[in-house]
C-alpha cells in the first residue's frame, strides 16, 4: 500500500509544473523583443521543435524508430498550402485540416507498424515517406512538383494579426501553437495512457500480460504524433508561404531525428532544446561553409552516439533539479 502511494507521489512529482518551465516559456517570448531581427529564425526553431516533439511521442514514449516522419510533416504542409492556394487562407482552419489529413494517414499506416522488428518498422516508415515523395513529385499539376507550390495567400491569424515581412507574427503564432500542443502532449504522457505506453515501450510482452493492449496504444500515439507533425508542416507552409518537395525529403526525417537526439529522447523539452541547438548550429555552419554544413551535422551525430546522447538530457535535468531544489529551500 505504502509502495503504491510512493509511486503515486513520484508520478505526481514528475507531472508537477516547475517554475523553471515557466521561465523557459517566458524567455521564449522575450527573445523576440531582444533580437527582433531574428524572428524568422526563431519561428523555424519553434516549428522544428514542434516536429521533434511529435517524433518524441512515438520514439521516446512509444519506442517506434521511424525514418519517415517527414511524411506527415509534408502532408500537413501540402494540405495547408493547397487550402491557402485555393482561397481558404484562414491559418487556424489550415492547421485543423492539416492535422486531420495527417492523422488519417498516420492512422492508416500505423497498422503496418504493429508487426515486425525495428528494421521492418524502419523500412515501412521510410517506404511510406518515399512513396509520398514520389507521389508529390509526379502529381505536379496539383503540387507544383519540383518547382514547389506557389501562389499561397495566407490570411491573418484569427482575422487580426496578418503575417509581416520580419516574421514577428509568424514567430508568436508558431510559438503559441507549440505551447498549446506541448501542454497537450505533457498532459497525455503523464496520464495513465502515457504510463501504459511507457510500459509497452519497456516490455511489450509483459505489458500485454498485465492487460495493456499494446496495439491500440501504439495506433493512438502514432495517429496523434502524425497529427502534430502535420500541424508543424502546416505552420511551416503558412509562415514561409512556400511548400516544396523538400518537406517530404529523406533529409527532413533524418534531421528531425538528430534534433530529438541532441535534446534527448523521451523528454518533451528534448525536442525543443534540440531544435534550438540544431537550428542555431545549422545557421552558424551554413554561414561559414554554405555547401558542406552537412559534414559537421554528420560529425555531430557520430560523436553524439559515441559519447552517449543521454548526456545533454541528464545535464539539463540535473541543472534544473539543482536550481529548483535551491529555489524550494529559499
Amino acid at each position, binding site marked *: 500500500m505504502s509502495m503504491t502511494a510512493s509511486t503515486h507521489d513520484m508520478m505526481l512529482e514528475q507531472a508537477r509544473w516547475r517554475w523553471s518551465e515557466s521561465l523557459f516559456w517566458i524567455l521564449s517570448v522575450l527573445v523576440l523583443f531582444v533580437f527582433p531581427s531574428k524572428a524568422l529564425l526563431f519561428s523555424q526553431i519553434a516549428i522544428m521543435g514542434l516536429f521533434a516533439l511529435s517524433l518524441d511521442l512515438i*520514439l521516446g514514449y512509444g519506442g517506434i*524508430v521511424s*525514418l519517415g516522419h517527414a511524411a506527415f510533416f509534408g502532408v500537413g504542409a501540402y494540405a495547408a498550402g493547397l487550402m491557402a492556394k485555393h482561397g481558404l487562407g484562414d491559418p487556424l482552419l489550415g492547421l485543423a485540416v492539416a492535422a486531420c489529413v495527417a492523422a488519417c494517414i498516420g492512422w492508416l499506416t500505423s497498422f*503496418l507498424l504493429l*508487426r*515486425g*522488428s*525495428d*528494421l*521492418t518498422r*524502419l*523500412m*515501412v516508415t*521510410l*517506404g*511510406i515517406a*518515399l*512513396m509520398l515523395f*514520389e*507521389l508529390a*513529385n*509526379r502529381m505536379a499539376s496539383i503540387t507544383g512538383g519540383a518547382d514547389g507550390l506557389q501562389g499561397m495567400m495566407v490570411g491573418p491569424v484569427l482575422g487580426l494579426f496578418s503575417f509581416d515581412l520580419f516574421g514577428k507574427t509568424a514567430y508568436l503564432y508558431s510559438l503559441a501553437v507549440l505551447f498549446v500542443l506541448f501542454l497537450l502532449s505533457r498532459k497525455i504522457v503523464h496520464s495513465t495512457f502515457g504510463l501504459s505506453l511507457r510500459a509497452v515501450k519497456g516490455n511489450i510482452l509483459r505489458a500485454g500480460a498485465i492487460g495493456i493492449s499494446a496495439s491500440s496504444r501504439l495506433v493512438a500515439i502514432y495517429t496523434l504524433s502524425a497529427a502534430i507533425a502535420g500541424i508543424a508542416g502546416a505552420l511551416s507552409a503558412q509562415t514561409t508561404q512556400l511548400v516544396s518537395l523538400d518537406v517530404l525529403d*529523406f533529409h527532413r526525417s*533524418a534531421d528531425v*531525428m*538528430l534534433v530529438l*537526439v541532441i535534446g534527448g*529522447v523521451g523528454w518533451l523539452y528534448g525536442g525543443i532544446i534540440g531544435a534550438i541547438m540544431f537550428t542555431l548550429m545549422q545557421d552558424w555552419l551554413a554561414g561559414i561553409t554554405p*555547401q*558542406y*554544413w*552537412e*559534414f559537421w*551535422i*554528420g*560529425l*555531430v*551525430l*557520430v560523436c*553524439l*552516439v*559515441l559519447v552517449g*546522447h543521454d548526456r545533454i538530457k541528464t545535464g539539463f535535468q540535473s541543472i534544473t533539479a539543482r536550481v529548483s531544489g535551491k529555489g524550494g529551500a529559499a
Partner: protein
Amino acid sequence: MLTILFDGIAYGMLLFVLACGLSVTMGLMNFINLSHGVFSMAGGYITAFLINRWGLPFLLCLPLAFIFSAALGMLLERTLYRRLYARSHLDQVLFTIGIVFMAVAAVDYVIGSQQQTVKLPDMLKGRIDIFGGSIGLYRVFIIVLCGCLAATIQMLLVKTRFGSQLRAAVDDPRVARGMGINVNTVFAITFAVGSGLAGLGGALGTDILGMDPTFPIKFMIYFLIVVTVGGTSGIMGAFFASLILGIADVGGKYYVPQIGAFIIYALMVVVLIIRPQGLFSRSRGK
C-alpha cells in the same frame, strides 16, 4: 521485351553484389547499417580515379576497387562500427546516417559534385543479338561476373569452415566464443568482404547507375529493400530479392514511367506487410 528483362536481370545482379555484404551484416548480424553505400561510392570513385588519372585498364581496376573498399571497411569496422554491435537500433541508425552525411559532404568537397565516368574497354562495348533481343555486352559481362560471384559466396558460406564459423558466430556469439571461434575476427573479415563487394559493385555500376556524391543516399533504399525483402535466411534470399527488384524497377520505369519509383516502394511495403520477416525467410522468425 527480352531486352528489358535482360537489363532488369543485369541491374538485379548488380544490386545483389552491392547489397549482399549488407544482407550478412544487417540481415544476419542484426546491425542496422545505413552507410553501406559509402563503400560502394569508395569503389566507384577509386575506379574512376585509376582509369582517368593513371590510365589503368578497367578489368584491373575491379579487384583494386574490391581491395580498397575492403580495407576501408576493415579500418572503420575495427575503429568504429564494432563499438555499435551491442548498442540500440536507434544508436546504430543515427551513427550510420552520420557517417553517410559526412561521406557525402566530404566527397563533394574534395572531388566535386559532378558525375564520374569510366571508360569501358572496347571489348565490353557494343551489343549482341540473342533470341531476337539486342543486349549490351557490358550487361552480359555483369550478369556472368555477378552470377559467378553469387555462386562463390554461397559456396563460401555453406561449404567452408569460415562459413560455418560465421553462421555459428551470428547465431550465438557467446557459445561460438566458447567453442574457440574468434568472433571478432570473423565479424571483421565478414564486414571487410561485404564492403569490398560493395566497392566492386560500385565500380561495376558506375557506368549503369551513375556515380556522384549522393550515391549512398540514393541507393540506400535499394540496399535496404534487398535486405528486408530478402529476409534473414542467408544470401539466396537477397539474391532473389535483388533480381525481383531489378526487373520490377527496370520494367516499371520502361512501361509506366509516369509513376516512377513508386512501384518498388509500394512492392516493398506490401511484401513487408504480408511477410514482416522477409520473403524468403524461414517461417519461424528469430
